[in-house]
C-alpha cells in the first residue's frame, strides 16, 4: 500500500548514481579478506551490512525495538502469564498484581494478549512484506531492464495501483473473502502493496542498465534473466532491503486496520482485533483506556522501529547518508 508516510528513505536521490557506491558494490563482490566458502562469504557480507546499519544511531534504536518485539513473539508462551484465550477471569477488571493491564470484557488477561499479539503482527509484516518485495523485485527489475511494448502496459498498471487508495481495495476484497484468516490478510496486503517497491526498483535498474559491467555481461553472451538477477540484482540489495521494511511497515498497519474493522480473523489475538473488541465493549466509557492504548502503542512502536531501521539501510549503498565517522 502506498502509505501516507512519504518515507524519507525512498525520497532520497538515487543512491547508486554517485561513484562512492560503485566502490561499495565492488567490495561486495570482492571482499578484502575473502572467506573460503561461499557460505562464509555471504556471512561476511551480511555481517558488514549489519555493522553499517548498526552504526547509524537511529537505525540502532530501531533494531533494538524490533529485536525486542521479535523476542517477545518467539518467547510469548514463556513471557505471558496466562493463555491469551483463557477467559476464566473477572470481566473488565482494572490493572492489578495478577493482571498488570487488567482484563478484557470477555475476561481475558490483557498483558498476555498484548504479548501474543506480537506474533500476528510480525508474521503478517514479515511474510506480506517479503512476498510483496519478491513481486516488486521481479516486476521492477524486468520492467526496468526489458524494452518493448509491454513496458507501457506495466507502467500503466503500476501507476494505477500506486494512485488507487489501497485501504478501500483491501476492505472490499476482505469483505468478499470473509473468514479467510491470516492468509487472506497477507494476500490482500500483497495485492495492494507491491507497486511502490516495483517503481523504486525499476528506476534503479534503468540507471544501472547502461553501466559498463552490464554491457560487458551482455556482450559475453549472458541471458537477460542472468544479467538482471545475477549482475544487476546484487547492486540493489540495500534498496530491496529498504522496500522490504517499507512494505512490512505498511503490512503491519494494514493488518491492524483490517482487524480493527472486524475484517480479520477475529478468533486470533492480534493488536488490531484487541482494539476492535475493546471498542465493541465500550472500553473508553468504562475508563479502560489501557485496552486501546497498549495494543495501539505496540503497533506504532513496531512501525516506527522499521522506519528507523530504514534510515540505516539507506546508508548501505549511499555512504553519504551514513552518520558518524570512521567508515
Amino acid at each position, binding site marked *: *500500500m*502506498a*502509505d*501516507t*508516510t*512519504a*518515507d*524519507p528513505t525512498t*525520497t*532520497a*536521490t538515487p543512491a547508486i548514481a554517485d561513484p562512492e557506491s560503485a566502490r561499495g558494490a565492488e567490495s561486495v563482490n570482492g571482499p578484502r579478506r575473502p572467506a573460503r566458502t561461499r557460505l562464509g562469504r555471504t556471512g561476511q557480507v551480511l555481517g558488514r551490512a549489519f555493522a553499517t546499519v548498526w552504526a547509524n544511531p537511529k537505525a540502532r534504536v530501531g533494531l533494538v525495538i524490533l529485536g525486542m518485539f521479535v523476542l517477545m513473539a518467539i518467547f510469548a508462551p514463556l513471557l505471558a502469564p496466562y493463555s491469551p484465550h483463557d477467559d476464566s477471569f473477572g470481566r473488565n477488571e482494572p490493572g492489578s498484581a495478577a493482571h498488570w493491564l487488567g482484563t478484557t470484557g470477555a475476561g481475558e488477561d490483557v498483558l498476555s494478549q498484548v504479548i501474543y499479539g506480537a506474533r500476528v503482527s510480525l508474521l503478517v509484516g514479515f511474510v506480506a512484506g517479503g512476498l510483496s518485495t519478491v513481486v516488486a523485485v521481479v516486476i521492477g527489475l524486468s520492467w526496468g531492464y526489458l524494452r518493448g511494448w509491454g513496458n507501457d502496459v506495466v507502467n*500503466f498498471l503500476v*501507476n*494505477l495501483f*500506486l*494512485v*488507487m*487508495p*489501497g*485501504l*478501500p*481495495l483491501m*476492505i*472490499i*476484497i476482505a*469483505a*468478499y*473473502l*470473509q473468514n479467510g484468516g491470516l492468509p487472506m490478510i497477507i494476500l490482500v496486503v500483497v495485492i495492494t502493496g507491491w507497486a511502490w517497491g516495483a517503481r523504486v526498483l525499476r528506476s534503479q535498474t534503468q540507471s544501472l542498465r547502461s553501466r559498463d559491467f552490464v554491457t560487458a555481461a551482455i556482450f559475453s553472451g549472458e541471458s537477460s534473466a542472468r544479467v538482471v538477477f545475477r549482475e544487476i540484482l546484487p547492486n540493489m540489495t540495500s534498496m530491496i532491503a529498504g522496500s522490504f521494511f517499507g512494505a512490512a*511497515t505498511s503490512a503491519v*498497519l494494514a493488518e*491492524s*486496520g483490517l482487524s*480493527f*474493522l*472486524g*475484517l480479520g480473523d477475529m478468533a486470533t489475538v492480534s493488536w488490531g482485533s484487541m*482494539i476492535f473488541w475493546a*471498542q465493541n465493549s465500550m472500553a*473508553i*466509557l468504562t475508563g479502560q*483506556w489501557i485496552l*486501546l*492504548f497498549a495494543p*495501539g502503542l505496540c*503497533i*506504532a*512502536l513496531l*512501525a*516506527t522501529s522499521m*522506519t*528507523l531501521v530504514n534510515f540505516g539501510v539507506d546508508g548501505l549503498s549511499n555512504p553519504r547518508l551514513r552518520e558518524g565517522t570512521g567508515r
Partner: protein
Amino acid sequence: MRYALRKLGLLVLTLWAAVTLNFVIPRLMPGSPADAAIAKLAQNGPVTPSVQAAIEAQLGVPGGSIWDQYVTYLNNVIHLDFGVSYTFFPQQVSELVAGALPWTLIMVGAVTVIAFVLGTLIGIGAAWKRGTWMDSLPTVAGSFLSAFPYFWTALLIVFFLGYVLGWFPTSGAYSATAVPNLSWEFLGDVLYHAALPAITILITSLGGWILGMRNTMINTLGDDYVTFAEANGLRGRTVAIRYAARNAILPNLTGFGMALGGVVGGSLLVEQVFAYPGVGYLLFNAVTNQDFPLMQALFLMITVSVLLANFLVEILYGVLDPRTRR
C-alpha cells in the same frame, strides 16, 4: 495544451481501468456474491426484475455472458445506477453515496490541503535550520507520528479531547437537534463536529509532508544557484523561500498525488471512530452488513475521487513547471 490533453487521456484510461477492476473483483471471488445479495434483498420484500438485473450486472451472474454483463454494467455506471441498498432498504445506492460523499470530500480535502501547506512550511524551516532543534524536533516527531495507525490516533483523541476534557463532540457531523441549512450557526456546528476527525488526520498525515519537503529542500540547498544567491548577499529568507523552496516544492507535489490514496484510506477508519457520516462510515456499514452493491459503488466513488484529485495535481504541476509540458 498537449500536456493537458495527454493527462486527460491518461485520466480517462485510468478511470476505465478502475471501473473495470470494480467489475472484475466480485467475479473473481469464490461463491456468488450476486446470489447472496439477491437472497439478502429478498428478506426485505419481493425483488423486482429491474433491481435483480442491476445487481447481476454489478456482481455477476453465474453462467451469463461476461461481455453482455460488462456492457450492462458500464451503462449502469454511466447512469450512476448501482441498484438498491439492503442495509438501508429501499434507498438507492446512488442516493446514499451522494449523501455521504460531500462530508468526506470537504473534510478530508480541506485537511489535506492544510496539512500539505503546513507540513511544507515546517519542512522548509527544518531544512533551512538544518542541525538545530528546529530540524530535529519536527523530523523525529514527524517520523514517529506518521507511524501511528490512523484509527489509534483517532481513539486517543476521542478519549482525551472528547471524554476526559470534553472540549469537542465525539461523534456525528452536526448536533442531533440541528436542522441542516445554510446559516452561520449551522456551519459553526458542522465545523465544531469536524474538529476532532480533522485534527486526527492532520496529526497523522503532517509528518510525511515535513519529511518529504525537508529532504528535497536539503538537496536543493546544495545547488550552485543557492550558493550564488547567498554570495550575492540576498537575505536568508529570500534565498530560502524564493530560490530553494520554490524548486523543492515540485517533487513534494508529486508525492501529494500518491499520498492522497493513503490519506483517504486512513480517513475511512477515522470516520468509523467518530461516526462521521461520510463515505468511510457508510463503507463500514456496508461491509458489516455484506451490502455488496453499496460496497462496490463506494469503492468506485472513492477511487474516482482520488484519481480526479490526482489529475488536478498533475495539471497544477504542469502549470508550475514548464519543463513537464514539453
